[in-house]
């Protein structure tokens, strides 16, 4: 179903997190005193942390590419609510309290109100999906998310026929999110999808990573994952879901309309005005690996290209 571009390792070749965590512990041990003398203690054990989740692996919707390491995924983040450096979220997200957490559902739907995140998820079985992530900054990762299909959650609110779009809002609380004290973006962060995009089976509401509860810097407790779109569409720490008739505003589009569109589908044929989108730097591929060609819809064209038939993707970037 998926068309990965690189020779794929067999599933048996993928290193389970426990194994490489053990290897990492061994390496840290082997580096011994030298490492201990220069490494802050918190960084010495960088294996998966957090409570384990119960989930089923969805192999049909997963890429067989090797996932990035827990450390790469949890320390190289764009999450401006916690600062604009890649390392800021992992350093500052600790002060975000993700329980209790409620999500407001509003707009063109029959069922509306405020829901505890547990109640929102309870009727659904958690799935693991290994997705490619392509950042608009021309780097990419492979990430083993745990979550529930967005469309199935949305259907429970019985959107009306006027619900053409779904809008999402991130928490706004500068005390917990120090990056919001600067006006680098308009807070709160907002994102949106066309309803058919939201209902697509690949769209995921993620709550976990590597089989564990999602770390705060990756969007806990609830974030969006839309693997055929640039990473900034994946709004984090969602507190509101709203069904709308009009196309909702989206944060990066508001900040720089000429550079970031509403659709933000991964597209090597449409460059960012300031840099090329034809290739990407795959995180974790090492210093001497070449960049990889970027694929239309991030390699998910077979599944999602039909959503956009008749739409000029150069104008609707």
């Amino acid at each position, binding site marked *: 179903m998926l068309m990965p571009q690189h020779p794929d390792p067999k599933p048996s070749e993928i290193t389970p997190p426990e194994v490489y965590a053990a290897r990492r512990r061994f390496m840290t041990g082997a580096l011994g005193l030298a*490492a201990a003398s220069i*490494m802050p203690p918190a960084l010495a054990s960088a294996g998966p942390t957090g409570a384990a989740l119960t989930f089923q692996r969805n192999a049909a919707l997963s890429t067989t590419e090797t996932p990035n390491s827990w450390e790469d995924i949890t320390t*190289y983040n764009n999450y401006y609510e916690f600062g604009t450096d890649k390392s800021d979220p992992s350093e500052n997200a600790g002060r975000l309290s993700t329980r209790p957490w409620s999500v407001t559902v509003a707009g063109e739907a029959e069922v509306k109100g405020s829901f505890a995140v547990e109640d929102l998820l309870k009727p659904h079985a958690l799935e693991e999906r290994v997705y490619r992530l392509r950042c608009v900054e021309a780097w990419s990762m492979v990430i083993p998310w745990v979550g529930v299909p967005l469309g199935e959650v949305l259907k429970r609110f019985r959107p009306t026929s006027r619900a053409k779009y779904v809008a999402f809002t991130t928490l706004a609380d500068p005390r917990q999110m120090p990056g919001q004290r600067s006006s*680098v*973006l308009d807070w709160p962060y907002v994102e949106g999808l066309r309803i058919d995009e939201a209902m697509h089976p690949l769209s995921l509401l993620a709550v976990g990573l590597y089989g564990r509860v999602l770390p705060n810097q990756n969007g806990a407790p609830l974030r969006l994952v839309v693997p055929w779109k640039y990473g900034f569409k994946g709004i984090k720490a969602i507190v509101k879901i709203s069904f709308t008739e009009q196309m909702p505003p989206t944060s990066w589009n508001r900040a720089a309309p000429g550079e970031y569109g509403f659709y933000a589908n991964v597209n090597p044929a449409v460059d960012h005005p*300031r840099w*090329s989108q034809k290739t990407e730097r795959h995180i974790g591929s090492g*210093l001497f690996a070449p*960049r990889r060609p970027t694929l239309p819809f991030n390699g998910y064209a077979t599944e999602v290209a039909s959503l956009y038939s008749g739409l000029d993707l150069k104008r609707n970037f």
Partner: protein
Amino acid sequence: MVRAVVLGGRGLGANPIAMVTDTLGLWGLRLLLATLALTPLRHATGSSEWLRFRRMLGLFAFCYLSLHFTMYVVVDQSFNVGILLEDVLRRPWITLGFTALLLLLPLALTSTRSAMRRLGRRWQQLHYAIYPAALLGCWHYYWQVKRDVRSPLLYAAIFAVLMAARLWRKRAAIAQRLSAAPAVHEAHDVR
């Protein structure tokens, strides 16, 4: 790289190529601005000791910026001529950075004592190219960042201050000459 070391063994992070490239570029710009700070420092302190560091700092800046460029061409883009040409010709911020480096190249090549002697007065004229190079460097940095322009603006402000110090001094010198001029006139009139 220096930053990575300063950060204390964090390694180079998840994206080492970007980390090294960015760090080299940033230190190149810092060294370039440090080079430009020496003349105002001399005027402020009245000591020409500062100028002893000018060639060294300038060459270090050029060295860092050349490595910055090499990281981008060799390590990141693997000599992909098509992409490189497109970048240099069509991406204004890369055009700016590339132009700045081209401006600095003859300066590095003529940094020897014998070149100074051979070029005479033209040496000074040639080396004024550091001003546009530093300006383009700041601009290159500003256009490179996605959204948070606070750091590039800080460097641009430092550049502006260093240039303003020169202008201010030049103005003071002209004013001095002008105030001296009427005196000559008067003397002439009397005569």
